[in-house]
């Protein structure tokens, strides 16, 4: 084969690679895709942590749901906690607020909530089954689920007030 042909092929492949690399700067390789957006929320039935009884997604028919996955050892979760308290007071009548604690102990969570306040119900997911069903990739993560129990969006970082307002507007429509 002609040497120049080989060099040309190498050049073309190299050019494609260069373009791809240039386009890749700024992409976060650690970001995990989330495919459940627009899909029905997975059913769950979990023990309550702050009171007796279990919570069933099916029992919340017709109500928008805000799900927050968190853990006590996670610093950003503690930062986010006041925002959720504020949001639960503001939107508590329009949507159901549910916190889900996983990869944590019941004891530590109760202590945390007693110290920092708890204005919405908390579930305990000892085996992380619910977290796996929801495709959780870290803590904290907040899911916004509409009346028909379709996941409208997920926010995978500590949320602030204005972001929360924007996201919840989508499920209250």
């Amino acid at each position, binding site marked *: 084969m002609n040497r120049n042909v080989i060099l040309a092929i190498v050049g073309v492949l190299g050019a494609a690679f260069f373009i791809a690399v240039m386009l890749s700067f700024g992409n976060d390789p650690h970001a995990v895709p989330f495919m*459940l957006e627009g899909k029905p929320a997975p059913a769950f039935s979990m023990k309550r942590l702050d009171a007796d009884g279990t919570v069933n997604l099916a029992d919340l028919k017709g109500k928008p749901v805000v799900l927050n996955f968190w853990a006590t050892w996670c610093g950003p979760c503690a930062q986010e906690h006041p925002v959720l308290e504020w949001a639960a007071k503001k939107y508590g009548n329009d949507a159901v607020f549910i916190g889900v604690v996983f990869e944590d102990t019941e004891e530590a969570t109760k202590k945390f909530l007693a110290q920092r306040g708890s204005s919405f119900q908390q579930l305990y997911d000892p085996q992380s089954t619910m977290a796996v069903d929801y495709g959780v990739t870290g803590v904290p993560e907040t899911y916004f689920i509409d009346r028909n129990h379709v996941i409208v969006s997920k926010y995978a970082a500590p949320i602030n007030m204005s972001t929360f307002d924007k996201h919840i507007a989508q499920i209250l429509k």
Partner: protein
Amino acid sequence: MNLGLILLAAGLVTGQYAPQRQGTDPLDAEREARVHRLGKGLRCPMCQGQSIADSPAPAARAQLDKVRELVAAGRSDAEVESYFVDRYGEWALLKPKPQGSNLLLWLLPGMLLLAGLWIILTQVKRAPTPGAPSVSPPKADDDYLAQVRNDVDR
């Protein structure tokens, strides 16, 4: 054993650190091997690039539990995979499905191999004339090499 230290460390664990957790009980050997094989092919979302069978992270253990649950429920390999693909897209599979542009991953190495093979064949002289001695006597390039060959080829 120092009980005081244990209590201290354990107290520390509940406050600042994520507790470690154990997985669900293993199934019978055959199905457990399947769980492990499936786990090897699924990417753990919380631990960079490792499979859920390899990663020591609690999240990976929870996902492996899910695989075990699905296998115990008699689901097929494809169904187990699609459970994770539904959540994380094809990103969850450590071995991409050979479809669309993913095919390049498998075809390009093969093409390279064929091209290389062809180049090697073009480097070879035409077949020697029949009857000619099939061993060409080594041409001595110099005394030193000849000496070396002498030592070696004996």
